[in-house]
């Protein structure tokens, strides 16, 4: 009997490597093709440097897609689900973000697993309102 596995998309943001479940990513794109107001940056994961790629995340309840700006996409890793560790109860209770869902040990390095929909939702909720476009003149 084969062990259930999970496919993780690895990406780099700033100096750190993160993982997210592949099913949360609609596609990987070039951020130059994305309207600026659909880009998501400045999340709790930290600042971006190279801003090379975008992870397109589906919006909840049929809203517009959002594109999380990342520095690099490093590939996909398949790991046994038994190796995915949930966040300890204490850490989950005191973190100011719900976007870190757990850890996985990859190449002997603990790697944080990010819940992209929650990350994007939190960032959009915290974002200052965008200025209204100027009113059309006759």
């Amino acid at each position, binding site marked *: 009997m084969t062990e259930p596995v999970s496919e993780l998309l690895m990406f780099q943001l700033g100096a750190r490597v993160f993982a997210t479940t592949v099913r949360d990513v609609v596609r990987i794109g070039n951020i130059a093709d994305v309207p600026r107001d659909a880009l998501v940056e400045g999340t709790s*994961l930290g600042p971006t440097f190279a801003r090379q790629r975008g992870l397109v995340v589906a919006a909840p309840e049929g809203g517009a897609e959002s594109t999380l700006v990342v520095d690099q996409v490093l590939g996909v890793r398949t790991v046994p689900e038994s190796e995915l560790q949930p966040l300890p109860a204490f*850490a989950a209770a*005191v*973190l100011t*973000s719900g976007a870190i869902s757990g850890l996985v040990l990859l190449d002997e390095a603990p790697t*944080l697993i990010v819940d992209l929909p929650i990350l994007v*939702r939190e960032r959009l909720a*915290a974002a200052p309102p965008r200025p209204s476009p100027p009113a059309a003149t006759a």
Partner: protein
Amino acid sequence: MSQVRPSSEAAPSGAGHAGQDAWFFCLRILGGRYAFEALLVTEVVRLGPLTRLPAAPSFLPGVFMHRGEVLPVLDIGQLVGQGAIAIRASTRAAVVHSGQWKVAVISDGLEGLVVIPRRHLEAPPAESSGMAEFLSGVARDKLGTIAVLDLPRLVEAARSRAVPAGSAGT
């Protein structure tokens, strides 16, 4: 790492003895002596490399892997606003377990098990600031005063001092 649960010979639990002595696991934090009930401390571990968590409060400097389990590190000094406990390669932590909460408490040094006659236990001071609000009692032995920490109260304070998930800024 070492197991710290006292043996049944060393920690009598029979009805005739249980009420006479209380066992504590004692640590030094920022110049003071603090303790948890010994039965809550499951082992002492050397800290592995810490993985810092985004959006973590200062009293949660990170998590580390221990025997395939992710353990959160609690800096009590930061929690009570008395300054950070220095983390070095030699830093060890007491793994404290109460209910659903399991944390690795770092300290400046570990004294280990101490036995206090129950008649030497006192109620905590009535202050509601600093470390005092997290104490379940105060004990005295020949080395001085030991403040007995209440882990569930520490955890509840930590939760109340963290901004709820979803309302964080950047």
